[in-house]
């Protein structure tokens, strides 16, 4: 049953998720995937960290996607994240001028990922954040979380999600390393397990 009948008034059932597996590395990562910020932009921040399993071991085969608004809070609707080169069939990289808001970073052999993007602006009712989607071998369905940046304690204290998760809030707030660098580890399981989200 893989032709979907859309004639009825009811909702159509979704396609199930599956793991990304171990071999996406020649298909999904792309040149400049981590360098989301336009070159030399003054609101550039670096976010980075480790993806860790339930034994505290880093994952060398996880994929982290980031999606966030501009510093003024507006949502970019700009293509060109993975510009392709019709001559070689390779990736050209971003043009360094436009901000698409989205990027992709694969963990290295140490389980470490990074991205350079623009500081997200405030939208809606909460404190500003970057939306994160994590994929990995062994993970049957991706996981959503958020990276909140430290600094504006009043805004963080008033954020509806951070209030709801109580003493687990620290797993959603990056550590300030200075010079616009922030540390955000993603713990899939166990002590200090990151808060993961489900959108309804």
């Amino acid at each position, binding site marked *: 049953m893989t032709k979907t009948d859309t004639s009825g008034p009811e909702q159509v059932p979704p396609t*199930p998720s599956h793991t990304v597996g171990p071999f996406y590395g020649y298909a999904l990562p792309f040149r400049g995937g981590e360098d989301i910020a336009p070159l030399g932009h003054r609101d550039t921040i670096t976010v980075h960290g480790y993806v860790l399993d339930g034994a505290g071991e880093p994952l060398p085969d996880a994929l982290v996607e980031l999606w966030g608004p501009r510093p003024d809070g507006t949502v*970019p609707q700009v293509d060109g994240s993975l510009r392709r080169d019709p001559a070689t069939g390779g990736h050209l990289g971003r043009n360094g001028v436009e901000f698409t808001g989205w990027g992709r970073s694969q963990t290295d052999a140490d389980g470490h990922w990074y991205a350079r993007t623009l500081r997200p602006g405030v939208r809606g009712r909460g404190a500003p954040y970057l939306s994160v989607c994590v994929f990995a071998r062994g993970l049957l369905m991706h996981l959503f979380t958020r990276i909140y940046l430290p600094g504006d304690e009043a805004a963080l204290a008033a954020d*509806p999600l951070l209030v709801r998760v109580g003493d687990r809030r620290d797993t959603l707030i990056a550590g300030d390393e200075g010079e616009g660098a922030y540390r955000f580890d993603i713990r899939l399981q166990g002590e200090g397990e990151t808060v993961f989200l489900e959108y309804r």
Partner: protein
Amino acid sequence: MSLTQQDIDREIAARHAAYEKRLADGAPVEHHPRRDYTPYRSSVLRHPVQPPVAIDSAQDPELVELYSPAFGERDITEIDNDLTRHHRGEPVGERITVSGRLLDRAGRPVRGQLIEIWQANSAGRYAHRREQHDAPLDPNFTGAGRTLTDAEGRYRFTTIQPGPYPWRNHVNAWRPAHIHFSVFGAAFTQRLVTQMYFPNDPLFPYDPILQSVTDDAARQRLIATYDHGLSVPEFSLGYHWDIVLDGPSATWTEEGR
């Protein structure tokens, strides 16, 4: 003590029976796998133990997750969706055409969004350095492609029928032939990575990854249909596979859901 197919079969049956019982007791249909599906051993240390925190998007329609990153013509080239044309020579194997529609849960087409695929070659080998399966690489086949959906949400790929391959979940573990799909929707909440299978594969009951979808009807939705109308004369066999994305979007909210 090595883990056998019989051990995995028993675990698969137990998880399936547990799901059927939950359903009979009135629990909701589970369209997606549970992340703690241990017959797939790699999941054991990689699933959260705490339940996910629900975000009611209707409460905050400004959420950035209700919007999707944008992709356009410069993010693909003309032959990115024809995996048989990425090298000088012809790849080995049966050419296939895979096509379908990208839809949301309301059945509306998702237009202009990115679909990326990757797969093993006809011998069941991925073009990945970490892949150690002793089957030949094909110098004329990489097995990665991408496309944008059209105004009706349609996509189309030309590729090679992938082979099944062994893996090390347990002794004599084999994956049924499949193509990996990575899909963007009308919102980041609708993000999906999954795998498409081919009809009547005898490996289905033995595979803990496919069986991680314990709902029988949901599992069927991962299997493409042979479609003679999509077969190209003298060239390829056609398979139809629609993709339906879960999760709210900004347009969804505007329409009062």
